[in-house]
């Protein structure tokens, strides 16, 4: 009962935080792609090409998004585990959301490139890889969901213990005494 009272609101808070951080990373990444052609740098000993100096707002968006996203993903996973739900399922769902959203950024901006962006082949390749990674998480989640629906919402049955094929015949005397206590 206590798990439900605390765990369910914690799942909602974790999901809200995770999605908010995902929006933050998404918009920071999109801004870097629009204004700097997809890469930027700041600080360090090297001369940074004009137009590729990192915007401090984008740095904040991406940093807060990544670090906060990790924390809130942990909150969702721990709360789901506490409720005896599928930690693997919810983790794969967050994985799919992350790579699906960022992959969409790559593909959408590759199809409608910002002004001054010459080649977008790399973005298409990155977008395709990201979407494949998202699918790699989403397909197992859908399989798990289908199994859950087939069982009518019941928990997965415990696997039957595997009987050993070969059993060792232990002589009677060996069972009573050990080599370290010879009495």
């Amino acid at each position: 009962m206590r798990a439900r009272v605390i765990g369910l609101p914690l799942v909602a808070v974790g999901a809200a935080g995770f999605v908010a951080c995902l929006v933050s990373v998404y918009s920071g990444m999109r801004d870097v792609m629009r204004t700097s052609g997809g890469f930027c740098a700041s600080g360090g000993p090297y001369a940074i090409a004009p137009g590729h100096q990192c915007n401090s707002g984008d740095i904040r968006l991406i940093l807060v998004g990544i670090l906060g996203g990790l924390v809130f993903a942990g909150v969702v996973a721990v709360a789901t585990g506490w409720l005896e739900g599928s930690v693997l399922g919810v983790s794969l769902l967050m994985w799919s959301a992350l790579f699906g959203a960022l992959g969409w950024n790559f593909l959408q901006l590759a199809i409608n490139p910002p002004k001054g962006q010459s080649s977008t082949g790399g973005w298409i390749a990155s977008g395709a890889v990201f979407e494949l990674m998202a699918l790699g998480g989403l397909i197992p989640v859908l399989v798990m969901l289908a199994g859950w629906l087939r069982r009518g919402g019941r928990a997965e049955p415990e696997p039957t213990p595997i009987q050993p094929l070969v059993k060792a015949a232990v002589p009677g005397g060996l069972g009573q005494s050990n080599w370290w206590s010879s009495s």
Partner: protein
Amino acid sequence: MSRATSMVWAAAVALGSGAGIGLGILLEHALK
């Protein structure tokens, strides 16, 4: 997890995600 808890869990995730989109847009304006 029981069936009823699963339903409430899914609703909590959906509600949280919906709120998260709004919060994310606010966060974007605050950090940018």
